[in-house]
Structures are given as structure tokens and as C-alpha cells.
């Protein structure tokens, strides 16, 4: 019972954070709202029983990725965004579209998926279980994903390095 209440509360916090992310005009406030979303998602994972995934969610997303986001915003010294009036097309087509899409996804998940609903605390969350799954059943997707990440890293390095510009020795380019 307490678990269900907590699950709903953190679900609400998550959605509120996501809406606040869109509503804020300053990039730092938006980034911090995203941190709230990540952290409350981690609590949801924890309540579902996936404690390893929850911890990794906090360490990787809230603790590393979002810190880099905040770092970039601070480095660029980005100011508050200007707000436009918005378009009628977005209002008339967008809002019903989003609602219909959300309902469709919820309906498919509830009715058509084979697993059905996941009870609270029922996910196999032990690190050993996840490790066994990753290195036996899902070895190929896991390795393919890591190569994909490697390619992305190399792409970032290529984009960031400027071979024509002379870099003073010992300084980062």
C-alpha cells in the first residue's frame, strides 16, 4: 500500500518535472527539472524492485550526463530564452495529437503486451541477474550497443578536434 502511494507520488513528481522542463525559460532551470525527472524515475525503478537499474540511473543520468549538461550551459553562459506567442496549428493539432498518442501507447501496453502489468517489487533487480542476462541472453545487442557508443565517441572527438588550428603544447584544444 505504502509502495503504491509512493509510486504514484513519484510518478506525479516525474510528470510535473517534465512539464516544468518545458515551461521554464532559463536553460539551467530546465536542466534541473530534467534532473528531478531522472531522480524520480530512479525511485520508480527502485519501487518496481530494480534497485541496480535505479542506482545506475542516478549515477549515470543524474550524476554524470546532467552534470555535463549544466556544465555546458554554464560554459556558454546561456541566458533566458525568448518566448514566442506560439502557433494555432500546434495548439489545435498538437495537444489532441499528444493525447491520442499517449492513450494509444497506454492501451497497447495494457491490452496487447504479453507481459501485462508489472507488480510492484517484482522485477528481478539483483545485479547478478542483470549481469547474467547481459552476458548470456542479450550478449549480441549489448556488444552492438557498446560499439555504437564507441562510434559516437569517435564522432564527437572528430567534431571537437580542429587539426588545422595550432594548439599550444599541453593545452586542450
Amino acid at each position, binding site marked *: 500500500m505504502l509502495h503504491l502511494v509512493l509510486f504514484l507520488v513519484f510518478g506525479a513528481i516525474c510528470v510535473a518535472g517534465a512539464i516544468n522542463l518545458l515551461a521554464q525559460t532559463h536553460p539551467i532551470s530546465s536542466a534541473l527539472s530534467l534532473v528531478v525527472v531522472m531522480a524520480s524515475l530512479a525511485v520508480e525503478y527502485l519501487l518496481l524492485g530494480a*534497485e541496480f537499474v535505479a*542506482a545506475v540511473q542516478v549515477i549515470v543520468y543524474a550524476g554524470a550526463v546532467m552534470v555535463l549538461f549544466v556544465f555546458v550551459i554554464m560554459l556558454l553562459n546561456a541566458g533566458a530564452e525568448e518566448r514566442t506567442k506560439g502557433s494555432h496549428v500546434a495548439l489545435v493539432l498538437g495537444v489532441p495529437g499528444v493525447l491520442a498518442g499517449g492513450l494509444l501507447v497506454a492501451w497497447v501496453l495494457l491490452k496487447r503486451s504479453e507481459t501485462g502489468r508489472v507488480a510492484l517489487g517484482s522485477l528481478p533487480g539483483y545485479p547478478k541477474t542483470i549481469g547474467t542476462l547481459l552476458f548470456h541472453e542479450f550478449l549480441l545487442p549489448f556488444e552492438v550497443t557498446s560499439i555504437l557508443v564507441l562510434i559516437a565517441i569517435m564522432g564527437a572527438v572528430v567534431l571537437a578536434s580542429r587539426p588545422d588550428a595550432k594548439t599550444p603544447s599541453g593545452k586542450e584544444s
Partner: protein
Amino acid sequence: MLSLRIFIIASVIKTVLVIFILLTAVAYTVWLERKVVGHMQNRWGPTRVGPFGLLQPLADGVKFLLKEDLTPPHVYKPLFIAAPMIAVICALTSIAVIPFGTALPIRGYSIPLQITDVNIGLLVILGVTSIGVYGVALAGWSSNSKYSLLGGLRASAQMVSYEICLGLSLVGVLIVSGSFSLREIVQSQGGHFWGFIPKWNIFYGGQFIAFFIYLMSAYAETNRIPFDLPEAETELVAGYHTEYSAMKFAMFFMAEYANMITVACVATLLFLGGWSGPLFGPPLLVAILPTFWFVAKIFVFLFIYIWVRGTLPRFRYDQLMAFGWKFLFPLAIANLVVTALIVAYRSSL
């Protein structure tokens, strides 16, 4: 299994006691640092307040409380106020999963000396400390001053970089002991080999290099000399906490020293066998001795911290990044691969 009421009473008492001890330890680590660094530099350190200056932390606390709390007009107020809170909350939270010893037998109940024993204890500590970066980064940004901003930028880049080496240096220990639970990691280090050398991970597990990497990254994570670039006073006034005064400044100060103690706890638990040590004497002494060994090891670790501070000069920023990424990071990966191979070989025998 304890009954619910006993569990709640024990938890509340433990939480209050641990936070009280931690804050006292923070205050006296500051005293120890001033004293030790003072003697290293051929001066006395604090001597005026109480015998050996022992009441100095108290006087400092009173001073921090009574000083005027200035908020400069150009700051972004919500984050300026929230930043020191984030820093100090994250620093105090991670102590919750640290075990201080075996269980204390009180009136037939066995009370474990730990606020809560979770099976992903180590990950909780890493997660909470990784959130602590926001305190420093946001303090730098919200102060709206160039020194603070530079300090905040340096801190976030440095902490994210060294967190990777810190995490990788711990994975070797996790492979050797096969658990995330801090209690189980300590229990896996019990006993001796060759008759007298304790089976600590730093010796038996072959994690000596990992301990070195952990030590270096931990200094960088806690912004201590030789990695204290975020608050380098010769270039940045006081870095990210330039604009802070009174209790808000003290909160950053407390967070820094609480983080030092947490780091020392983790090093003790993972590499130095936790509370294991020689046990002797009557039952009461046997019950207390593990905690004594644990505290003694933490003290040694903190002393090394202060010793390094009194000895080494500060890195230049590019040296810091090169050291982290080009030396510590490959070394940590090599240690991980070798440890994994050895463990796989041992288990295949």
C-alpha cells in the same frame, strides 16, 4: 528479525547518534588538519581556546552562527540558497549505508552497527556523491561572479572526470568480493594468509594499484590539495564559495570534510578490511574492538590526507586533466582486466 517497534527506535537512535558523531568528527578533522599542518610548517596551530586548542571547533561554530549572513545583490537567489544545502545534504546522506562494525548485542537483540544495510550499498554512496557535484556547480553559477563561475566549471569538469577513475578502481574490489553490499565486502576480507598477513583486498585481492587510483581520485573528488583547483586561492579568490558568508560558507566547509570522512570510510571498508582486526579480552571489549579498528583505520587515512596537503603543491589545470585521463584511466582499466582474468583463472581451477 527484529520487531517493528524495536527497529524504529533503534533506527532513530542510530541516525541521531551517527549524524552527531559525524558532525563532531567533521569539526575535529578541521582541528586535526590545522594542528598537523601547523606542526609540519613549524608553527603551533590553534592553541588559545581550551587545552591544545581543543575547543577551537566550538568557537568556530559560534562564530559562523553569529556572523552576518550576506547575500550579494547580483546572485540568483533560489539556487544560491539551495546550493550549500545540496552539498551538505549529499555529504551527510551517504554515511547512512556505511557499517561501523559487527552487531551489538543489547538485551537479547542484535543491533547491527549501521543505519541501513542495503544490498547495493556501494552504488548508493556513488550515486549520492555524484549528485553532490550539483552543490558546487550551482554555487559557482548562481553567484554570478567570474571567480565563482570559473571555480564551479573547474569543479564539475574535474569531478566528472575523476568519478570515472574512482568507479573503475572500485570494480576490481567488487570482482574479488562478488557483492555490492558493504557488509559482505568486509566479511569477504576476514582471516589471514601465510599465517599473519590479513586478507584485506589491498594485499590478498591484489588491489594495491586500485587503492592507489582510488586515493588519487578521492583527493580530486573532494577538491583537496593537490587537486584543489576549484578553490585555488591564488587565482580564484576562493573559487565557487567566493560569495558565500557565515553559515552558508560553513555548510560547504562541512560538506568537504564530511566527504573526506565518507571517502575514508569507503577506502577502509573496501581495501583495508573494514572493522577486521585482532580481538581479545572480555566479551564487552570484543564487541567494541571492531569499531575501534574501523575508526583507527579512518584516522590513519585522514592523517595521510592532511599529510599530503602539507606536502604537495597544486597541479596546473591541464596537468590535472592529463593525469586523470591519460594516466589514471588506462591504469584503472588495466587493473580491471588483470583482476578479472585472475579471478576467472582461479574459479576455473
